[in-house]
Structures are given as C-alpha cells and as structure tokens.
C-alpha cells in the first residue's frame, strides 16, 4: 500500500475514534471551537502527522518487512 494512502487511513481512523469519543462525552464542541479560533495549529498538526507517518512509520514498516522476508532466503517460500 502506498504510504500516503496508509497515512490517510490512519488519519481517518484516529480522527474518527477521537471525535467519536469526544462526541459521546459531549466535549467535542470545545475542540471544534478551539480549532476555529486557532486554525494554524490544526494545519501544523495535520502536516506533522502526514510527515511523521511517511517518514517514521512507513520506513519502520518497510524495514521490518524486509527483515522478515530476509529470513526466507534459501527456502521455497513463494512470493505474493
């Protein structure tokens, strides 16, 4: 999966879960109001999230997959 699509999926998941919890507890309006007053913070956090995901998470997962696959050198494991 392309790292950007993976990042979008993770961003949707964390935001959905977060604001689901905030809505259930009835404090979501406070967050929306605060973000309306400070839109730059929301933009910075979004950029930070995607950058961190593309660099930190994706590279870690790719390295982990390469290390995992390297264990099968010399075996007859088929590749998908």
């Amino acid at each position, binding site marked *: 999966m392309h790292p950007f699509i993976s990042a979008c999926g*993770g*961003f949707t*998941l*964390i*935001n959905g*879960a*977060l*604001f689901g919890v*905030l809505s259930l507890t009835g*404090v979501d309006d*406070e*967050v929306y109001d*605060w*973000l309306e007053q*400070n839109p730059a*913070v929301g933009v910075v*956090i979004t950029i*930070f*999230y995607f950058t*961190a*995901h593309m660099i*930190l*998470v994706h590279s*870690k*997962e790719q390295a*982990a*997959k390469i*290390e*995992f696959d390297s*264990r*099968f050198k010399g*075996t*007859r*494991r*088929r590749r*998908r």
Partner: protein
Amino acid sequence: MGIDPVVFVALGAIVCYPFYRWALTALMQPVRLAFADEGVQLLNSPHLPEAEKALVDRYLDDAFDWKFAPFTAITMLPILGWMVFKAATGRDSSIPIELEQFSSRPEAEKFIQLHVLCVAGSNPLFAAIVVFELLLVLLPALLVLRSLSAVSAFVETRIIGWLATRNHAH
C-alpha cells in the same frame, strides 16, 4: 492563547499516533521474526507434505496483514453460528484435511500461536474487538468443551486457522 485540557489531549493523541505505530512495529518485530523462523523450519521440514507447506505460506502472508483482524471481527460470530448449526443438525462440520493435520502437529503449535499474535499486533483495535466477541462465546464454549486449552485450540485452529486459509482464497 490558553489551551483547554480536552483540546490538549485530543490534539496530543493525533500527534502521538505515528509514534504509537512506530513503537508497535518495533515491539512486534521480535514476534514476527520468531514467526518467520518457525515458518522456515516448517517449510524446510522433510516430514511436512506440500499441501501443509502451502498452508504455512498462507499463514506467513498474514504477518503484517492489518485486514485480517477486521475480517475476523466481522466473520467470526456468523462462522461460529454456522458451525453450531451444522453440528446441531448433524451435518459435516469438518475443516480442510490439511488444516486438520497441520494443527494436530506438535511442531506447528508455536507457529500457530505466533500467527495469532502477529495478526493481533497488526491491528490491535480490531483484535480487541475480536477478544470481546470471543469473551461472549468463551463461557458457553467452556461449558461445552470443559477445558480452556481445548477452547484455545478450537479458536486457533477452527476459527483463526480456517480464516487464514479463506483470507487468501479470493
């Protein structure tokens, strides 16, 4: 610019999420490598038939599969219901023969347990939902099977193992 504690926690969660994913990958890597090593041993075993080696391959494909836990969460209860229905009506409820044989091998036990850990670690949120669903059916199953290890083996083989073979059938 004052910041409300609720806002701080909400935005902090978004900032921390990539670090959580990074840490989870690091935490799961020794488990995945142990899973790979067990898989290599099984693939190189002269005693394992080709059909069961193909099964080992399918299990290994799930090592990083984030879709497996949601798939299990959605399908587990209907499958269990179907199994109970088949057993109650006296129909054949057997699983594929290679899965039956493979899961009865002592050398496959650790491999199957590591497979469960790997798929759970690839999507902990849905793995928690699967555990919750299991808790719903665990008590009745305990009453029927009267053994925790039998219930555990049933879940690993009949449900997770069967799903591992179905997950790649398409």
